[in-house]
């Protein structure tokens, strides 16, 4: 059984004021990124009010995007591999190969004894 929840809006809060204007302008049809913020605010309120939220990612995914905004990065910019120029391999690599060659015959010999 779940608690019966009453959502309380703070009419003096700048975000709530801005959200009212936005809902009036768009007739309640908010863009996907704004809806994401609305859900984020709701989940934050859930936690602040002592509730649990079902999926941590409901909080962390939009927060990660907000952090990008804080760093002036595009919200949806994908991750890209960094191209790294590797140095030419040097001489010692050859010695290692010789060692491995020595190990192998020993294993075969054990099999013969059994």
């Amino acid at each position, binding site marked *: 059984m779940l608690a019966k929840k009453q959502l309380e809006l703070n009419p*003096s809060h700048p975000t709530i004021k801005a959200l009212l204007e936005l809902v009036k302008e768009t007739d*309640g049809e908010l863009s996907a990124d704004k809806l994401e913020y609305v859900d984020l605010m709701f989940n934050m*309120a859930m936690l602040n*009010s002592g*509730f649990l939220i079902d999926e941590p990612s409901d909080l962390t995914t939009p927060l990660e995007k907000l952090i990008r905004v804080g760093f002036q990065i595009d919200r949806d910019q994908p991750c890209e591999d960094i191209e790294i120029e590797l140095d030419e391999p040097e001489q010692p690599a050859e010695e290692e190969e010789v060692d491995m060659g020595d190990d192998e015959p020993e294993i075969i010999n054990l099999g013969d004894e059994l």
Partner: protein
Amino acid sequence: MRLAKLLRFHSTDEEEEFTSLDDYISRMKDDQDTIMYLPGDSLSSIKKSPILKKYLNSGYEVLLLPDPMDEFTLQHLSEYEKKKVKSIAKDDVNVFGNDDIAKEKQKKLKEMYKPLTDFFKKHLGKKIEKVSISNKLVDEPLFILTSQYGYSAQMEKVNKHQAMAN
């Protein structure tokens, strides 16, 4: 409950020691008819609850209940020495804005914010029962109160943990 006299609680007015309900009543404001409490996970998290701030700013004392048993006890007490005993995380505590001017202002705000309350109702659907314009918040944009009839946030949490354990 005759043992109620013996109950001791943490309180916003008594940082170090526990307080009794009688001591709480002796400190109550003149216009106050309710013994108020707030349950939570720990003392420090309750003290940071967004719903507590306005009561503190307005000089009201609130009992702090970090133990689930405390909440269970006070919920069943419901009245002590003719004072109501209520959780400020529930929707039936009305200590702010009871004069006519405040009520009129609240009515105007409600009309002004109707598009937003309608939006939240539509968007959140079954997650919530009701949306209202609050006069209990200071710094936070949103808070979720629970109905006086039914589970509190703490009880919902305990219930979820039990469901997971089964």
